[in-house]
């Protein structure tokens, strides 16, 4: 059975199943969400109004046995940035959608009244139901209750109170194999789901399976691909320390933004490091190694237990730990894990929210390092939607505007993550030129600048950084379309068998004849599609800039400033 487009109109509560238009057929994941947003969403629409659309799409290889292929993409016009947005996540939803033959789920329109709804998807289509019981509840209660209503085998996409209250930092939670949650984190897509009045989406694929055109070729390519991933030393370190292994190396390099981006090194780095976290996890009977979806061979996630050995959180990432830790000068991992759990439950992005807290600390709302007050504000203000809670829940830019803070680390109103662009310059090009606001995952130059993967580049020099970021942003757009976890890139950059095997899998899955060049061209065309949407929405090259303070305030220990000219940045789009 050919894959279909599932469409839901929330204005008249109708649903349909449509054939895939020919020019969408070669797309999946980010390529597909961005293609659909560009085709169907008016660029000048209000992101929370009836003309925006929320799209979910599994990657091209999701639902197959391909290693690490379980990423789901969500796309819309972002209420945080006003740009096009794609956010992707692990969890079980990509595999469920792919198996039920849903190439994309398009949610459009907006209910006329105040009722809330849920969606239920099976291979036969979509059912819309009114929802009352779970309104006002956090994501963990939603997952527990929805599993009881349906079964614990289903996939679930849900929003917490943050999404219900249309906060610009709201994310969409994706159930993982242990009934915990991962997040479609950045850009406020949870608010778009909330604006459509959808509390959760249940995904029941039954026994359906993805069809493979040439199974023997697929299996052979997957074997080569898996070996490349497993053999790469970065994969092995990720399985032991998680992504949080980065705290110490980024700190050592002087690029760990500290105390709302006023320093590049954090005194408490060792207490929040991956090494310390690993030892705590083992000591308390947690799991240092854990996969966010079936088929992951890297296993960078983990189960973090509290002091008593009870489950506290999972999949806690370097960027979240950095944001709640160094940026707010909190050096206690248990407090950070508690905050991670609360933010997952409320359903707001850990990076955006914690950077917003750093700005609030500078604005005098609370003291730097006061994690008890952060926790109180999360529970008593953000989750309940008080005025302060909404100011913070709308992100770092919102806090800066409200409290008159000038040191506000955002690009296109999205918080800058865990790498200071003055000390690590290539990533600054990615922040500036990304089609979606500041986002390290769009073109992870850190691999080359700091980690020595895929070559090396001096992080304090401007030389070659525009080209480095461009190449990685193009490759990332393509990888984000396959359903592959971005962490395959470490192996892909170093092991020449990795990418050809990925292309072979795509060909075997669909019975096509892509070449490596086709994949690069796909990445370029996705970036251009996204860029064109932003221009039509009113963005110009002058929006591709970092905040002024990066040019005027040297960051220790290197005392470096951001010194790219606008003209230099603009050469990014010369392709």
């Amino acid at each position: 059975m050919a894959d279909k487009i599932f469409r839901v109109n929330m204005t008249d509560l109708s649903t349909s199943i449509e054939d895939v238009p020919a020019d969408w057929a070669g797309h999946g994941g980010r390529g597909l969400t961005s293609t659909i947003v560009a085709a169907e969403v008016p660029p000048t629409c209000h992101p929370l109004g009836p003309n925006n659309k929320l799209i979910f799409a599994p990657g091209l290889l999701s639902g197959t046995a391909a290693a690490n292929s379980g990423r789901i993409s969500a796309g819309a016009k972002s209420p945080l940035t006003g740009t096009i947005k794609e956010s992707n996540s692990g969890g079980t939803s990509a595999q469920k959608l792919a198996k039920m033959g849903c190439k994309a789920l398009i949610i459009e329109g907006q209910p006329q009244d105040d009722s809330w709804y849920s969606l239920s998807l099976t291979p036969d289509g979509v059912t819309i139901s009114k929802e009352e019981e779970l309104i006002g509840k956090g994501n963990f209660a939603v997952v527990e209750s929805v599993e009881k209503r349906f079964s614990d085998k289903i996939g679930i996409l849900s929003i917490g109170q943050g999404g219900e209250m249309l906060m610009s930092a709201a994310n969409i939670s994706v159930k993982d194999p242990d009934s915990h949650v991962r997040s479609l984190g950045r850009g406020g897509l949870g608010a778009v789901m909330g604006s459509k009045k959808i509390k959760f989406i249940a995904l029941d694929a039954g026994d359906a399976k993805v069809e493979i055109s040439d199974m023997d070729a697929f299996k052979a390519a997957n074997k080569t691909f898996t070996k490349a991933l497993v053999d790469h030393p970065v994969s092995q370190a990720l399985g032991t320390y998680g992504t949080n292994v980065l705290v110490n190396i980024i700190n050592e390099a002087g690029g760990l933004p500290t105390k709302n981006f006023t320093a590049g090194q954090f005194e408490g780095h060792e207490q929040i490091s991956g090494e310390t976290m690993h030892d705590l996890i083992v000591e308390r009977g947690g799991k240092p190694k854990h996969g966010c979806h079936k088929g992951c061979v890297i296993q960078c996630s983990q189960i973090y237990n509290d002091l008593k050995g009870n489950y506290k959180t999972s999949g806690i990432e370097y960027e979240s730990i950095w944001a709640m830790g160094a940026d707010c000068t909190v050096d206690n991992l248990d407090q950070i894990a508690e905050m991670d759990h609360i933010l997952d439950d409320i359903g707001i992005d850990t990076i955006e929210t914690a950077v917003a807290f750093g700005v609030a600390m500078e604005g005098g709302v609370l003291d730097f390092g006061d994690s008890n007050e952060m926790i109180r504000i999360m529970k008593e203000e953000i989750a309940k939607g008080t005025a302060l809670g909404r100011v913070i829940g709308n992100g770092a830019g919102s806090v800066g505007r409200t409290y008159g803070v000038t040191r506000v680390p955002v690009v296109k109103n999205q918080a800058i993550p865990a790498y200071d662009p003055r000390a690590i310059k290539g990533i600054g090009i990615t922040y500036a030129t990304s089609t979606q606001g500041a986002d390290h995952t769009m073109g992870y130059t850190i691999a080359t600048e700091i980690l020595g993967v895929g070559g090396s580049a001096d992080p304090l020099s401007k030389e070659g950084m525009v080209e480095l970021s461009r190449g990685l942003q193009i490759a990332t757009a393509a990888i984000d379309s396959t359903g592959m976890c971005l962490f395959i890139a470490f192996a892909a950059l170093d092991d020449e068998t990795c990418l050809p095997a990925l292309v072979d899998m795509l060909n075997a899955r669909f019975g096509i004849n892509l070449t490596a060049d086709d994949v690069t061209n796909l990445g370029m065309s996705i970036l251009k599609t996204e860029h064109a949407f932003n221009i039509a929405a009113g963005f110009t090259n002058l929006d591709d800039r970092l905040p002024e303070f990066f040019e005027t305030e040297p960051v220790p220990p290197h005392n470096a400033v951001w010194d790219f000219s606008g003209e230099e940045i603009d050469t990014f789009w010369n392709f």
Partner: protein
Amino acid sequence: MQVQVKLFAFFREGRFIKEDKELPTDTTAGQVVDDLNIDREEVGVLMLNSRHCKFDTVLQEGDIYAIFPVIGGG
């Protein structure tokens, strides 16, 4: 001369986190790696005073020298 040596991730196992070492003049970064019985193949990144360096970089009095295995994240 005295140099502070810092180890990270699994290089710490059976070794140390941070140690001040008395080293002969002209010791190279690579020699410290060898003396610690760390396989050079396993080394991902070397940093001297927060800047990347190479195995043949010569250490100086008062340097802070960090040795990382191949790691990644993001």
